[in-house]
Every structure is written in C-alpha cells, then in structure tokens.
C-alpha cells in the first residue's frame, strides 16, 4: 500500500515539474539509453533485460535525482560496457566509447542540475548559460581524452598504464591551472 502511495506521489511530483526541469528529466531518461545504444554500436550483443534495467534505473533517477540511483545507473552502464563490448576486434578504443562517455556526461549533468532546486522551481537563463558552457568544456576534454587514449592504444597496445598516466597528467594539469587562476584573481 505504501509502495502504491509512494509511486502515486512520485508521479504527482513528476507532473508538477517546471518546464526547465522537464527538459532535464528528458535528458536524464534519454542519456543512459543512448549510452546503451552506443555499446550496441560498439559491438555489444543485444540484451533486453539490460535495457529494462537501464530504463528502470533512469526512471528511479528521474524521480529521485538526489539519490544514489544515479550512481547505480553509471556503474551499471560501465559494467555493461566492460562485459559486453569486446576489444578483441583490433579497435581497443571505439569511437562509440566517446558517444557513451558524452551520454554519461549529459546524464550526470542533468541529474546534478535537477537536484539543485525543487522540481517545480524554474531555473533562470544564467543557470542554463553557465551549465551549458561547462558541459561544452568537459565534452571537449572528453574528446581530448578519447583522442589521446586512441593514439596511445594504437601506438603502444597493451600498455594501459601509460594511458592512465597521461589521463592523470591531463586532469592534474587542469586542476593546477584552475588553482593558479583562482589564486591570481
């Protein structure tokens, strides 16, 4: 009975979402499914139950964006990629990995943005501008990581430690640059 009541309340909450929050909810539901599709395109076998699981997890995230359902979704998509996408085909870093990474970026960003305000609250233009700009920066960085990983994997196959080290240097460099900028200001 309490489950039914809880579900009814959740649906009511979703119905009361403001327009800006509805747009974010569409991204929350759509992005992990897109990541799942990318894994199919990268060579994963079709598995209906994993699609159901992804949809259920995204719906839970859409209902409760400030819960750990989002983390479960991210981990599930990662696990699915790891177990279903093979790298034995000679292409260790598929271009579809970039698509999946960007989908996860969209999912995480939309979920975080939705949790910043109650569902019926409207988000102003400054908010959208700032978050769009940041997503673009992270998307560009992800593209850079993909390019770097693909280049290193093709030149030094089987030396993933080197890839990881390069990635760590990239992230560390960005963090250091930001710290210096803030300190100067």
């Amino acid at each position, binding site marked *: 009975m309490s489950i039914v009541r809880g579900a009814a309340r959740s649906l009511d909450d979703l119905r009361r979402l403001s327009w800006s929050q509805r747009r974010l909810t569409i991204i929350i539901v759509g992005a992990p499914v897109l990541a799942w599709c990318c894994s199919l395109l990268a060579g994963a076998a079709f598995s209906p139950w994993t699609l159901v699981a992804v949809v259920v997890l995204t719906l839970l995230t859409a209902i409760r964006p400030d819960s*750990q359902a989002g*983390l479960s979704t991210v981990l599930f998509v990662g696990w699915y990629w*790891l177990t279903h996408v093979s790298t034995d085909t000679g292409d260790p870093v598929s271009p579809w990995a970039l698509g999946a990474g960007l989908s996860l970026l969209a999912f*995480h960003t939309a*979920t975080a*943005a939705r949790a910043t305000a109650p569902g019926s609250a*409207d988000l102003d233009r400054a908010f959208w501008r700032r978050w769009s700009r940041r997503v673009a920066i992270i998307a560009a960085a992800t593209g850079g990581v993909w390019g770097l990983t693909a280049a290193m994997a093709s030149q030094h196959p089987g030396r993933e430690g080197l890839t990881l080290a390069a990635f760590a240097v990239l992230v560390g460099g960005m963090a250091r640059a930001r710290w210096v900028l803030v300190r100067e200001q």
Partner: protein
Amino acid sequence: MNESAQAVSERSLWRPTAALLRSLYGGAAMTLTALTFGRPDLVVLGAPLVVIAVWSLMTRPRGDMNPQTSLAHQSLREGEATTWHTSVNTVPGMEQVVAAVAVGRWLKAAPATGMRTHTVSADSVSTGTTGAVIRLDIALQSRRWGRREVGSGLVAATSAWGAFRFGPHDCFPRILWTLPLPATFDAKAPTPSPHGLVGLNRSRRAGDGSEFASIRAYQPGDRLRRIHWPLSLRAGELYVTSTWADQDSRVMLLVDARNDLGESGGLGLEASSLDVTVRAAAAMAEHYLRRGDRVGLRVFGAFNVARLPAMAGRGHLRRVLDTLASIEAGTDRHSNPTKTAGDLTAGTLVVVLSPLVSPDAMTHAVTLARRGLSVIIIDTLPDRVDRQADVGMQLAWRIRRLERERDNRRVQDSGIPTVPWRGPGSLDQVLRDLGRRSSAARMARR
C-alpha cells in the same frame, strides 16, 4: 576557536551531495577497472566524471551564508500582498540559491510555486566575493481574513556541479494578520435612539446642530447668530432659528462565531457563513465609525476574542478589524447571554450577525431585547450553503431550514426584526421601523 577548526566548521556547513559521490565513485570505479582489465575505452567513459569530481572538489565553498528571512508587513487587508524577503551572504564557491516558501490555502504566491532561484554572477563566483548580500523576494497575497503563520520555508544553496549543498535551512514562520475587507454597506436611515454628544444623527431634542427645527421667539441665552433677521424686522421683535441637536449613536455588533458553514474560497470567490458575518460586521463598523458613531464588538462562539467597548474614531476601526481577524469559529462552546449584555446601556442599537443555525444567537437577541435595547438580527447564512450533492445532506438542510423559519417567526413575534444581509440598504427599513416604534406612544405599566 583556532583558524583550522573554524575552517573545518565552515566547510562542514556545505555537505557533499549525491552528484559529487556519483562523479567521484563512478569516475574512480571506471578508471580503476580500466587499469585492472586493460580497457582504455573505459577511461573515456569515466573521464567526464573524473574531471567533474576534481572540479567540484577544488571549488568547495566554505563559510556561512547566514540566511535571514522577513515579512514586509505584519498585517494586510484581504486581497493585499506582502513580500517574503530572503537574504543570504555570498561565500566563495556558492553558485545557486533557492528559496521556497510554504504557500498555504489562503495564500497566493508570485511565482506561483512559491520558489525562487538565483544564480550567483560568474564574477562573484570566480573572484570569491564574500559578504555581498543576495535577496530573493516572493510576493504573497492573502486571500482570506484571519491570523495565520506565514513564511515557513527553506533556503538552500549549491556549489559548482551541484556537488556541495548548504542547508536546506529552515525559516521560521511569522504571524500575518489579514484584516477583513469590509463589504459594501450604507444605511440612510438614522439609528433609533441617538444619545451621545456629537455625531450625525438627529436627536429628539433641540440644541446645537445643523438640521432646521423651527423659528421661535428669542429667549435670553440664545446666540445672536441664530437671530432670524427678516422675520424679526417684519414682526418688530426678535425671532431665532432653532435646530435639532446632532448626536452620535452607540452601535454594538454581536458576532456569532459558533459555526462556519459552507466552503470559503477566499476573497472574490464563494463565501462561508463566517466570511459573510465578519465582512458584514467590518462594513457596518466602518460605516458607523465614519459617521462619528460609537461602535462596540462582542463575539460569542470563539475563544480568546477581546470584547471591545463602544468607542469612536478611525483608530477604533482598526481595533474592530483586528478583533474580527482573530476569530476562530467554534472554539468556545459556552456563551452566556447575560454576560454578553454586560454593560450595554439603554439606547444602544444591538446588531446580531448570525447564520441562525444554533439557538444561541436567538437567545442572545431575545435576552437583550427584554432589557429594552433595540435589537436587529442580520441573517448571514449564504444562499448556496444547502446545495449539497449528497441526498441525505440535502434532506438534512431542508429540515434545518424549516426549523430556522420557525425560530425566526418566534423571534420576530417577540419584536426583533430579522433581515438577510444584502449589503447597502440592508438595515434601512428596519431602522426606520425601530425609529417609529421608539417615538410612538406606549401604554405604561402600572
């Protein structure tokens, strides 16, 4: 407190959110898995999360926003609006502030959700401006009279990527008094027994006033400016113009708050019986006080409501409205008509405002009339109150209506007029009747 302890305390005000944990654990899990299983493609999947996690941790806010809330007004008239102010201090790393106020049944907010968000300017965030005040205002319109708590709400703030959150901080409610908006009312008929010193009602005795009474021969003591010169010149002796004295009346409003029947939709919508009663009482008080009469107020059926003695002036109108706004229907089940009559003196016009569904109002009216006071009952039962969907309720209301009619007839037979509330002119006819009755010859009891 030393500096490091204070820094820890300030940081603890900002708690990590599910978004930070997602980026941190999700990114770390994918990167470690990539390393363990030799899968560079998983680095690409986890890269955005890792970068966001690092970004979030580096921009962790610290400091107390010190949220403050206030209401612009403590009292309003029905339909008027006030503003709920929220102010917070900016702290480095704070990016978005959200304020939400509980919008009760009788409030209308703008924005309609009762929530407002504010994105801190990019300059303030990047330069780490501290101490600047951000204000978020939500307009609240009160739609029904009464005393209620307003402004219970939450204030929260988030950092970059929604990674850290301050609050939600509870805002304590404030008391907002909504004074009834008086209905339209006007009475052209004079009150039956004016007996005060000043006012607009013509008394039954001659004296200083503005209304012409007669022309009579001059008597020592008459003022020279009262001499009627044309007639005095023709007659060869002095004549003066006499006037009726202007006097004020004493009006006592007796409000029945025993029941509140019907649905109240707020100002401009459907009115319950208590809405009609309170707004009618406010209208009559405003009307008579503007004329210079003295108005008092007694309420029965509501607990802890002040008894206002008959007084004049605009300040007293505010007291009457405050008292009406404090009424809560049916909170007092004991009323004593003798006590209600209390210090009412002869010549007071008592107006009982009641939906007439409980016998108390009629008992009060009869008790007061037996003491020689002029009493009028105003029926404030709304027309639509008995339009019920349920057949059983319809039947019950029909029976109740019949009982009311019977009781009304009995009360009218004892000389107390009952009129339905119709706004302007509701009382004119009964006031004229009462005036005629009070000036008519009476049979004396021996």
